[in-house]
């Protein structure tokens, strides 16, 4: 019995740590979405599909054109950033004055477009980078380097965004706009330029997430559906537009998925996470960190 408990504990600890590592990437995804929502007041339903396109970008640069991973990553980030800016210019900008639901549904249309574009252009086969990173054995626990690297890079990305938002003029303008949309244009800030920069920044974060996720998962046109919904739930649970709330929620969700997956199938981890989300909506409808009315 004692031996059984020992093994159990090791597995439990391993699951907890893997949950934290997963949480890093989820937090990065949530940060991008929260940024867009907080500043432009739009939900990009197609956010995970931007990540999917970025993963394909990595696949083609590394596997087909033979670039090293470190060279391909900046290109991919730039590509998805450009895609984010284009999405804003083509779809969101004409709808800025329309009801918010229309903006949300329009990005839902973009989701279809990106998914089927990938199906038509790249086929439905699963593809991967062909890079197999070694596994770190710590005591009796195993952690893949891919996850550790993702966690580190995700933290680095978040710190970079934090510094950008607090230390630069543009970052300050972005934060100011998210506080009061109307007054900033009166203060001489070009809102259109700030929106465009924010969209590109959100895209760049999706691109960074793509570079990290492609190390762990195969890419196929519907890969966005596997982590897209969970990203939205994290943002809502943390309070849409609330960066710190989203950060905390990402780790809570990652732990639920990881621990739920330990005791049963991975799907049940997701079911638990979804159920937890709905229960939390009863208790804290405006997000984790919202003050109670």
């Amino acid at each position: 019995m004692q031996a059984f408990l020992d093994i159990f504990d090791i597995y439990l600890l391993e699951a907890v740590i893997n949950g934290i590592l997963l949480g890093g990437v989820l937090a990065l995804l949530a940060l991008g979405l929260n940024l867009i929502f907080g500043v432009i007041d739009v939900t990009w339903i197609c956010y995970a599909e931007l990540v999917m396109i970025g993963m394909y970008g990595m696949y083609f640069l590394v596997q087909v054109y033979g670039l090293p991973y470190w060279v391909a990553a900046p290109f991919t980030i730039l590509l998805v950033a450009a895609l984010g800016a284009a999405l804003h210019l083509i779809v969101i900008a004409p709808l800025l004055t329309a009801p918010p639901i229309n903006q949300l549904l329009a990005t839902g249309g973009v989701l279809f477009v990106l998914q089927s574009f990938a199906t038509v252009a790249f086929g439905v086969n699963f593809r991967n980078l062909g890079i197999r990173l070694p596994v770190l054995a710590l005591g009796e626990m195993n952690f893949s380097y891919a996850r550790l690297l993702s966690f580190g890079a995700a933290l680095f990305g978040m710190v970079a965004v934090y510094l950008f938002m607090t230390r630069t003029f543009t970052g300050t303008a972005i934060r100011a706009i998210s506080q009061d949309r109307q007054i900033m244009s009166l203060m001489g800030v070009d809102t259109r330029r700030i929106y465009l920069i924010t969209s590109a920044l959100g895209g760049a974060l999706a691109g960074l997430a793509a570079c990290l996720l492609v190390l762990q998962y195969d890419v196929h046109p519907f890969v966005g559906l596997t982590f897209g919904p969970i990203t939205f739930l994290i943002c809502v649970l943390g309070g849409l537009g609330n960066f710190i709330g989203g950060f905390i929620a990402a780790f809570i969700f990652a732990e639920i998925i990881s621990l739920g997956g330990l005791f049963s199938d991975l799907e049940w981890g997701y079911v638990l996470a979804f159920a937890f989300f709905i229960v939390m909506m009863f208790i804290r409808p405006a997000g984790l960190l919202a003050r109670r009315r």
Partner: protein
Amino acid sequence: MRPRHAVWILATAAAIALPFVHRDPYHLHILVLILIWSFAYTSWSIMGRFGLVSLGHGGFMGVGAYVTALLWNHLAVSPWIGIPLAMAAAALLAVVVGYPCFRFRITGHYFVLVTLALSGIVLQVITATRDYTGGSLGYTPNRTKGSQLLALQFDDKVTWYLIALFIWLLGLLIWRGIDHSMSRYAMEAISEDEDAAAAAGVNVTAEKLKITVISALMTALAGALYCQYQMFISPDTVSGIAVSLQMVFAAIVGGIYVSFGPTVGAVITILLAETLRIGFGTNAVGWDNLVYGVLLVLFIIFLPKGILGSLTEGLKPQRRPSLPS
């Protein structure tokens, strides 16, 4: 009012007579699909027209289809009892998710994302309980050995056409009933301004819940019928976010503010998918959704009222206001 009723009766009679004149099974199959999906899209629009945009309808449809099929296969419960039970289950789900949303004033983006979680849960539960539901491989209701009527399984396309036609007409009647009720005014007031509506004495939570439950019941019925007709369901075809978005898309293209809008949306989307499928053959994978997506974006930017909605709006000023309609 007289000529309008006459037109309705004539059109219905023509629709009923159609399969006895034109018996081509492929055309009938497309018509049945259009009618069933029209009913599903109509049930989405009953909520959607009041600004209650739900991405959870894939969940309701999945519950309708799977509960009916599971009861039949595992407990040998006839769909005649199974379908009402499945509808009740979907309604219960709608109350469990809807009540806190409406009670705590979860609207707009938040409501969309909460309902999105709902269709996510249903999809994952179906996949996770693969021992019973077949998981992502799909599920087939057992073929009946006894009475076809009791099992609600018909080989005859004409029978299915008539059933689908009846259900579709029922959907339009429910739409009309809501359109002529006090609930419509209450819901319109709520979609304009919740606080003002509440101050004017509208029970916001109860009104929203009522419309949501009606919509969920209808969607579950559509799912169950789809299952009985196709005799094969998989999590991806009746539940999940893709199905929810498909409903939203078709309803918006047709127009969610007019009763025939969702039907027009179903006709357009299904004919489009079929044409692309025949035109491109096996290369069509993805093309139909690519066209869908581009159309959806264009429609929301340029024609937010949908095709039929914009058409009727364009025709209205030409009509003389004194004419009795």
